[in-house]
């Protein structure tokens, strides 16, 4: 069995002391920022990207991945104890998890969340290991037209799953694509949209944009809020769930894992959608739907498993196709590019130690999270009492250092601030910045593939519809757009996202 050989290679890479250390740093940092409201994995990964420049590629990705799934764990802790989702994907966990805490059952809720997440993490790791190689093989046969259509599908999916208005989400993608084109045109060497500013000839740095849009604007938006937090520190209670808890939880964990693994693979998917889907399913299937929202343990077990599974399988399109499905994956692509590795299906064959090491490290990281998280809960809770007025200047200092160190040029910090202000305007106008980031990454790639495809087809645009795989992607994109535009589904979609707002 090839997969076992591959996994074995992965584990030998992942258990090297250095990679273990970075996995540990990653999951600890991830849990930390998952616990702290007001800073998410996207901002943190963006903040650390410049630093990964000094690491070897495997260690860098292992750490960044750890931050992502660690944040999913940490987010559930705050949801349950404080009723404040540290992470978007944990919003659902608030509903029943916090009710359990109010009933003095915070311990079992935390334990089930951790156990469910661990189980989901194990399954998702296996899913990646089995699904990724065949996918990458298919992807190796892709020509420029297939790539172009695939990117269209990815971007469409990202808009479909974004909050709020579809037209605005698509517009944000296009805006991102345009911003991505700023700089030297590879084909002609012409400087585009640089307005005579020398710093713009290499384009706008991806890290800079991501930190501005996700970091700065988030801080400003947070500073508007004033709110007291209600922390249940004294009565976490016994951690051990009862036999009844287990009996009710395990089917929810299984369903959540399956749903999350599937939704995570879809472009635009990932933790948030999986958690919501799982909660809805559990409520529908339950014999006691009236208990939901009042402390039903299934309402914690299902979504927590689903968001962890989804977070992990969302690595599949990134690793095999080089296409980011969500903003975190876009940052991972950014990390690969910083290391001089072109993302795409060839990563698996050319850098097997990176690919399989990352996968194995996910499993190890999940194990670390279970072992570390439950005993450390007390410490995380203490961190929650740090007021935001200490946190945000610290975050700003780290962001500013990170961005300045990119090229030791004040220009990058200036652009970060500009995008911070822009991101704040977007928040106010209800335009999701995440699709813009995906567009920003894919802009130059899309143009390149479009040009090549058109050159090969001698200017015939029907090539995207006559090649079967490419046509499939285009049809899927159109199909997605039509579905979402249908009035009935549009209503439902709006409901889902309205519920999501806490």
């Amino acid at each position, binding site marked *: 069995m090839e997969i076992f050989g591959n996994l074995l290679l992965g584990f030998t890479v992942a258990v090297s002391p250095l990679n273990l250390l970075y996995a540990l740093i990653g999951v600890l940092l991830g849990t930390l920022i998952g616990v702290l409201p007001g800073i998410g994995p996207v901002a943190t990964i963006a903040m650390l990207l410049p630093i990964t420049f*000094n690491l070897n590629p495997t260690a860098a990705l292992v750490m960044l991945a750890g931050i992502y799934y660690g944040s999913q764990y940490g987010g559930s802790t705050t949801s349950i104890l404080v009723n404040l989702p540290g992470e978007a994907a944990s919003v659902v966990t608030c509903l029943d998890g916090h009710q359990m805490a109010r009933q003095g059952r915070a311990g079992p809720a935390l334990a089930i969340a951790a156990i469910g997440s661990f189980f989901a993490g194990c399954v998702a790791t296996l899913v990646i290991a089995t699904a990724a190689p065949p996918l990458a093989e298919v992807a190796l046969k892709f020509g420029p037209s297939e790539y172009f259509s695939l990117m269209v599908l990815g971007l469409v999916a990202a808009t479909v799953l974004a909050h709020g208005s579809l037209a605005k989400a*698509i517009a944000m993608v296009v805006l991102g694509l*345009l911003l991505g084109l700023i700089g030297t045109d590879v084909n002609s060497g012409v400087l585009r949209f640089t307005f005579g500013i020398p710093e713009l000839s290499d384009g706008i740095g991806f890290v800079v944009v991501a930190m501005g849009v996700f970091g700065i604007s988030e801080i400003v938006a947070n500073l508007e809020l004033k709110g007291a937090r209600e922390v249940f520190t004294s009565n976490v209670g016994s951690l051990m769930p009862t036999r009844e808890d287990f009996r009710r939880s395990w089917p929810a964990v299984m369903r959540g894992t399956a749903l999350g693994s599937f939704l995570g693979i879809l472009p635009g998917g990932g933790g948030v959608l999986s958690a919501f889907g799982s909660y809805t399913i559990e409520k529908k299937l339950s014999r006691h739907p009236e208990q939901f929202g009042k402390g039903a343990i299934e309402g914690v077990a299902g979504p927590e498993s689903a968001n962890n599974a989804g977070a992990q399988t969302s690595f599949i399109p990134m690793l095999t196709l080089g296409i980011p499905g969500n903003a975190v994956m876009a940052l991972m692509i950014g990390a690969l590019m910083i290391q001089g590795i072109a993302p795409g299906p060839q990563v698996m064959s050319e850098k097997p130690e990176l690919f399989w090491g990352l996968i194995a490290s996910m499993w190890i990281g999940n194990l670390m999270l279970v072992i570390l998280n439950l005993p450390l809960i007390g410490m995380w809770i203490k961190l929650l009492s740090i007021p935001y007025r200490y946190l945000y200047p610290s975050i700003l*200092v780290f962001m500013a250092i990170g961005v300045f160190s990119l090229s030791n040029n004040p220009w990058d910090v200036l652009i970060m*601030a*500009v995008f911070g202000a822009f991101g*704040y305007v977007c928040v106010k106008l209800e335009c999701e910045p995440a699709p813009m980031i995906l567009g920003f990454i894919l802009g130059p790639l899309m143009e390149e593939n479009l040009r090549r495809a058109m*050159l090969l087809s001698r200017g015939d645009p029907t090539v995207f519809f006559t090649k079967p795989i490419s046509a499939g992607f285009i049809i899927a994109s159109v199909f997605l757009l039509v579905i979402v535009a249908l009035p009935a589904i549009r209503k439902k979609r709006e409901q889902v996202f309205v519920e999501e707002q806490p």
Partner: protein
Amino acid sequence: MIKIKSPKDFWAGMMFLGVGLFFAVWAVVNYQMGSAVRMGPAYFPAVLGGLLALLGGGVVAGSFAIAGPAVPTFHFRPLLLIVVGCVAYGYLMKPLGLVGATAVLVFVSALGGHEFKWKEVTILYVVLIVFSVLVFVKGLTLPFPLWPEALG
């Protein structure tokens, strides 16, 4: 007089419309268009800019038809102070060094919060500068000047 029913969408749409038109026009005027077979540097941005303008126009049109929420108030104070703090950090790094630039960033951005206590912020600054020096300058050996130029 047509009434704007959804101010959020109206302004978002206007933004897209403006940016889209700008990119499209700038590309067409300044760069080679080329043909579909051999696309020039203007081709893709012109198409995208046009698309963005169209989408923006659609959103603006929709804002007259469908009612939506008003634009929430902008809190300029935190935004301005944080933006100024960051920009100052970047441009003061050379003349003031890490120690000076970090001080400006921490104190200016702390002014953007709800409460500002000199003592607290000073302690925070000391902790952050010690941490930054240990981790970034000593640990990761980032080439930052530590002290203001005038002192060195």
